[in-house]
């Protein structure tokens, strides 16, 4: 449930896996919150043709495992699935799918939000945008998985 893939993403498939994993541990989850990042038709006013995502696959999967560990340290009853798609993505296609399961809904939303914030901070994944009139790499955060300030910032956003 932590993966980099070239295939289309499915929240339903992750939901089934996460629900079963939590149920195998005990009472099961009552709430699942999900996030799907989708390719938009425009970016800062420029018409997008398509995107390409690239990842350092082996490191990305380890990063997802770290994010899951961080989430479970804070929310012990949680389970988390996280899959990032790479390769060429058309408008309307999903680049990332996250499913968080917990006993109650407030935590499910928090875990899911925490996971996406952390992905954006530390996952070794890069977005290359192809516009009608050119292309550009997107560069966001300098990845540092040990940076406690970043982790606390993500936690603050998740638990707001």
């Amino acid at each position, binding site marked *: 449930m932590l993966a980099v893939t070239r295939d289309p993403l499915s929240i339903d498939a992750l939901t089934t896996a996460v629900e079963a994993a939590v149920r195998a541990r005990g009472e099961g989850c009552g709430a699942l919150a999900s996030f799907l990042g989708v390719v938009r038709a425009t970016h800062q006013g420029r018409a997008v043709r398509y995107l390409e995502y690239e990842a350092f696959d082996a490191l990305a999967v380890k990063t997802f495992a770290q994010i899951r560990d961080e989430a479970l340290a804070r929310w012990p009853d949680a389970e988390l699935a996280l899959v*990032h798609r790479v390769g060429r993505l058309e408008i309307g296609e999903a*680049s990332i799918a996250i499913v968080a399961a917990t006993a109650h809904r407030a935590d499910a939303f928090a875990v899911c939000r925490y996971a996406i914030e952390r992905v*954006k*901070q530390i996952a070794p*994944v890069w977005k290359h945008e192809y516009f009608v009139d050119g292309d550009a790499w997107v560069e*966001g955060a*300098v990845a540092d998985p040990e940076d406690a300030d970043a982790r606390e910032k993500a936690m603050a956003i998740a638990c707001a």
Partner: protein
Amino acid sequence: MRVTVRLFARLRELAGREVWTTEVPAGATVADVWATVTQAHPPLAPFDRAVSCAVNANFSRMSSPLQEGDDVAFLPPVSGG
């Protein structure tokens, strides 16, 4: 000793290469390797303060000493999600 160098995304594009092996002195750190990379590929120099690194597919520090055969990856700022 020999180490493998690996570049991703914009770093790879700017350098025009992705993976290669290079000779570094015994006791060299990740930073030493980065210095040889930016020397050979000056367009990478502006990433000095924005590059992350991984050794053998684990996040690392620029100050980490390397071993013979290590795989050293340099990562520009990330933009997943």
